[in-house]
């Protein structure tokens, strides 16, 4: 899929440690992957370090966390030696992130339009009018019908689905190369989920971005992504093309944890009397 020689993002042996009073919490323990202009899914149960991976790439690990990696390259540029200010300039402009819950991820005292326009103006020289026009265009791009009206609404005045579309508009308006979508639809109800995913998908495809799609829903990832990383306890259990997940003949090659995740999901066509519980082997984390 990748059209350039250097991948968009290369991560080697990424570690995120939290130094807490009760000891070191190792949220991510040696994750490696590379991303081209493709859709990469990251799946895992709660607490497996998915969000921390995304935030480490953006240099947004909160205190008292630390990020260690052998390699972290954005288009061949070393992120680790880059000054803080330069990394901030990358945020939003080059690498962006759509967050889980639009209700809490939008500033409640600013109109949604102003929040989007602001994201444009940090990275582009533009006066207020230009920024406003860009914003309205972006609102249209996420299929909001009355952009003029929605521009002036406050976050509490929009529904969850619309909030998430605003969020997508806000994170894409500066036209980043990479978008990290951290469970972008898990706070929405099912029908809205599909609409929002569709919009996200179209924008990512038409702009040729690289997408890191984080989810705990293996089936969703399987249908939405090109490649999938299965994470457990901060480590990658395995990485595989998404198509293989739907391929029964490839099942013998699957990691037991992946099989467990697949088994956890009830299927309408093949209902089980009892759902198997996930088995976890401490060996996996060795």
């Amino acid at each position: 899929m990748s059209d350039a020689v250097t991948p968009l993002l290369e991560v080697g042996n990424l570690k995120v440690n939290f130094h807490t009073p009760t000891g070191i919490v190792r949220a991510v323990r040696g994750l490696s992957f590379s991303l081209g202009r493709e859709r990469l899914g990251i799946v895992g149960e709660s607490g497996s370090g998915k969000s921390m991976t995304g935030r480490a790439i953006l240099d947004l690990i909160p205190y008292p966390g630390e990020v260690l990696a052998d390699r972290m390259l954005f288009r061949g540029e070393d992120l680790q030696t880059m000054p803080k200010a330069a990394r901030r300039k990358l945020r939003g402009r080059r690498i962006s992130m759509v967050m889980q819950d639009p209700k809490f991820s939008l500033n409640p005292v600013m109109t949604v339009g102003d929040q989007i326009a602001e994201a444009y103006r940090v990275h582009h020289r533009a006066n207020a009018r230009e920024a406003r026009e860009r914003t309205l265009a972006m609102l249209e791009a996420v299929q909001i019908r009355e952009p003029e009206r929605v521009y002036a609404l406050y976050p509490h005045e929009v529904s969850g689905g619309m909030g998430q579309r605003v969020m997508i508009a806000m994170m894409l308006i500066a036209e980043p190369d990479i978008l990290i979508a951290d469970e972008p639809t898990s706070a929405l109800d099912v029908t809205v989920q599909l609409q929002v995913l569709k919009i996200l998908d179209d924008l990512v495809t038409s702009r040729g971005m690289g997408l890191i799609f984080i989810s705990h829903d293996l089936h969703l990832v399987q249908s939405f992504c090109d490649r999938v990383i299965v994470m457990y306890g901060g480590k990658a259990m395995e990485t595989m093309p998404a198509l293989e997940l739907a391929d029964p003949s490839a099942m013998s090659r699957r990691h037991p944890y992946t099989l467990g995740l697949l088994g956890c999901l009830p299927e309408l066509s093949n209902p089980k009397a009892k759902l198997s519980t996930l088995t976890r082997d401490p060996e996996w984390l060795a």
Partner: protein
Amino acid sequence: MARSSAPVTGPATVTSGPGPGRLARWGKMLSRELTTVAITMFGLLAITFLIARVIPIDPVLAVVGDNARPDVYEAARLALGLDKPLWQQFAIYVGKVFTGDLGTSILTAQPVISDIKRVFPATLELATLGTLVGITFGIPLGVLAAVKQGRWPDQLARFIGLFGYSIPIFWLGLMGLLLFYAKLGWVSGPGRISIAYQDFVTPVTGVILLDAAMQGEWDAFWNALSHLVLPSAVLGMFSLAYISRMTRSFMIAELQQQYVIAARVKGMSEARVIWRHALRNALVPLTTVIALSYANLLEGSVLTETIFAWPGLGRYITNGLLNADMNAVLGGTLVVGAIFIGVNLFADILGRIFDPRTR
């Protein structure tokens, strides 16, 4: 993988918005607030009325003098309505207060209401400047303390907070006079303005700084300012302690919110994230805090004005106290209480305006 690219036309739902609903909401909110204010005002009046009734001083003797003949005494008693049942007396009292009749001061032989009108601007000047000091230093300090939790700005804020809550204000004023006026000579001493300048400024608003500036009397202006600096700094210290402490805790709560992370993801500078996004949200509860601190400074001025011989409402009340001038004391109490209630109402409404969710 096949993907259709037909646009999804999701319904752009709006859960609530501007419109006629807002007017009704505001109407309801206002009427509720005003009911609360009315009840509190009623309580205030009841308490001052009861205090006036339990005083061992005979109000009739205060009018007619100690050696009045019994018939004069009786006539005065009737004139004061003291023969009527208590609730009627209370009704009369409330009626009088609402027409602005707070009785006559024994000390000045003037109606209390006109005395208060005369002295109030001095207190207003002091409390306003004190609050300004508290806001300009307290908010940045509180924000820094929240951002640098556990580091020196936080320790400084903690230190100031603890001392602000532990120092007697009148003592701090005395120490300030001792150091900055007597020893260092940086500021002027007690009083609002030196006698030499007193006649240069004609009271118009009653706020000396404004009057002097409007009349172009700049020497008088600077003189008045050098008198004002110390007392307002002393008051401001308390406002600062309170405001910085509350700012810190509101900001800590805001900085943990998801929208702060989202702002950082957008690439906003840390300064903008803190001062524009987080602080703007913290300002909603802070308006109430600032209003409360303003009202508290009106009270703090009672002691401060005594130290600095500041001719304001606080000193008027304490003078009344020391001279058994009950009308002056209760009138002053009533006015301070009413301002308290008014400021709280104002803060409530302002907070609602700052918060689009309740607007």
